[in-house]
């Protein structure tokens, strides 16, 4: 899409010249320090507060109003802790492992469609990029667990890698129907096509949220969320850090800021996973049943960007809340249940969904359920 502005390009024009790659680096720093770090910090606070509410406790309430500054205190505590590498452990791999996890989680922020005007980069291969760069997390977990020279860690790391590699397949298969519908891998375009402007005729008119495009995408949207939970090692799929069996799994031997980086990586992954579900299935920045850009009055770009950002964040954070809620609702799966759920449950359903979506698109000439209802089946 021509009208979407890339961070780096906007920075270059606002701040007057300079080489683009410097602004690219600057925008990466802005994204990490302005989005990933605050989200990671506030997510730990939210997680503890929600857990406390569900278990009828108070939760953090000492630092700042309602304990909201707890995450800053935790960060200071982590920085002040002893930086410990176990004897016999592998120093180089132990140091590099958290970096893999954080890079894999934070690099995906570059393509998150926060708003039509707030995209790091609307890559041609946007969805593929997210799938590709997030695979960097699993070598990080595997190497970190091996370098700890601890059998619980190694078991956790092997479980984590096996789980991530297996659940990548249902995730990819759940994204395929969306690519079939949109005909592109560009996340900006995929979100744009989910607007509410059904008066528009033609194949590329908005067709409302992909979740309600046809019955098959309704199923695959939920499966994407489930498989995403497994990929981010959240309960009920938190076998890699199962505390009743493996002490704390792959991060047992990590202390101080290295442990903090693992935790930050995990929360960023959760955010990215929820943001991807939002962007691909829940209409991204669009407000339901409303098209703010064909309103009659033209709103200023900044206002539109802010409204879209708010909408995107509401949807994403609601999903993050569901992730935290599930943690205190569902028991953990066993390893064999985890694998049979993936290979005997999710993968066949996903394959059926891909086929079903293709048949739907062929039968109804690419029209969605909403288009069939509101525009009629005729041409």
């Amino acid at each position, binding site marked *: 899409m021509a009208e979407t502005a890339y961070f780096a390009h906007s920075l270059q024009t606002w701040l007057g010249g300079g*080489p*683009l*790659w*410097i602004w690219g680096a600057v925008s990466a720093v802005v994204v990490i320090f302005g989005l990933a770090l605050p989200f990671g910090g506030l997510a730990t606070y939210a997680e503890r507060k929600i857990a406390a509410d569900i278990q009828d406790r108070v939760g953090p309430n000492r630092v700042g109003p309602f304990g909201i500054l707890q995450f800053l205190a935790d960060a200071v505590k982590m920085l002040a802790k002893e930086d410990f590498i176990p004897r016999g452990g592998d120093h*180089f*791999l132990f140091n*590099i492992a958290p970096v893999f996890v954080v890079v894999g989680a934070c690099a995906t922020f570059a393509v998150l469609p926060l708003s039509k005007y707030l995209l790091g980069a609307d*890559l*041609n*291969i946007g969805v*593929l*990029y997210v*799938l*590709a*760069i997030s*695979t*960097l997390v*699993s*070598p990080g977990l*595997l*190497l970190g667990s*091996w370098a700890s020279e601890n059998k619980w860690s*190694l078991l956790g790391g*092997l479980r984590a*890698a*096996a789980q991530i*590699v297996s659940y*990548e397949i249902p995730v990819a298969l759940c994204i395929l129907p969306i690519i079939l519908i949109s*005909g*592109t*891998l*560009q996340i900006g375009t995929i979100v744009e096509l989910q607007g509410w402007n059904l008066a528009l005729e033609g194949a590329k008119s908005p067709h409302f949220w992909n979740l309600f495009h046809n019955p098959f995408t309704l199923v695959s949207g939920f499966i994407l969320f489930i498989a995403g939970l497994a990929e981010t090692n959240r309960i009920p799929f938190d076998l890699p850090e199962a505390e009743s069996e493996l002490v704390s799994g792959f991060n047992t031997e990590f202390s101080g800021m290295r442990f903090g980086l693992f935790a930050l990586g995990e929360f960023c992954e959760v955010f990215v996973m929820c943001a991807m579900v939002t962007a691909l299935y829940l209409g991204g920045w669009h407000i339901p049943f409303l098209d703010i850009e064909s309103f009659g009055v033209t709103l200023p770009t900044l206002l539109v960007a802010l409204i879209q950002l708010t909408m995107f964040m509401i949807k994403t954070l609601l999903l993050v809340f569901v992730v935290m809620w599930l943690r205190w609702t569902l028991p953990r799966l066993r390893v064999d249940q985890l694998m049979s759920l993936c290979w005997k449950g999710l993968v066949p359903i996903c394959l059926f969904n891909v086929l079903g979506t293709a048949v739907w698109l062929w039968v109804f000439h690419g029209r969605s359920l909403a288009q069939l209802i509101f525009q009629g089946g005729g041409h």
Partner: protein
Amino acid sequence: MSSGSQAILFAFQLMTLMSAVLVAFHPNILYASVALLFTFLGVACMFIFIGADFLAGAQVIVYVGGITILILFAIMLTQWMYKATLRDVRTKILLPVVACGLLVTPILLKTTRLIADLGPLGTAETMTAFSFSPKTQVIGQALLTSYVLPFEAVTILLLGALVGAVWLARPQ
């Protein structure tokens, strides 16, 4: 290409070459496989610089997310492997050098001739336009029209491999 992006490209090329050397000569097999991961990443970055973004994504998914993880798994599950130091590279040099020379020289000659036939790469504007043009669609259409037979042959091969793996791993 601006000098800035050329410097970044050079850094990636250096990373690819250095880690490839490490893969070949590091005595610890675990470190060698970690270096292999960086080689794959460097190759993916070079794909991006020539505008082959889909190829770069596929490279990272298949090689970093798949092959490297499998290699790491195999090493970690075989207990003697990561304690062993492999140091017998110096004793045999002549045969590998001759074999590699015979393999690599025709490829190098062929690619240099191909690159010479292509001519100059074009201006910065055409290169930028090319790198932002969608290529996934072109690849997909080529795979399902001109190259449909090799594509289907590969799918049957992969299906056979999958069935074979399940058959090998079945409970006895």
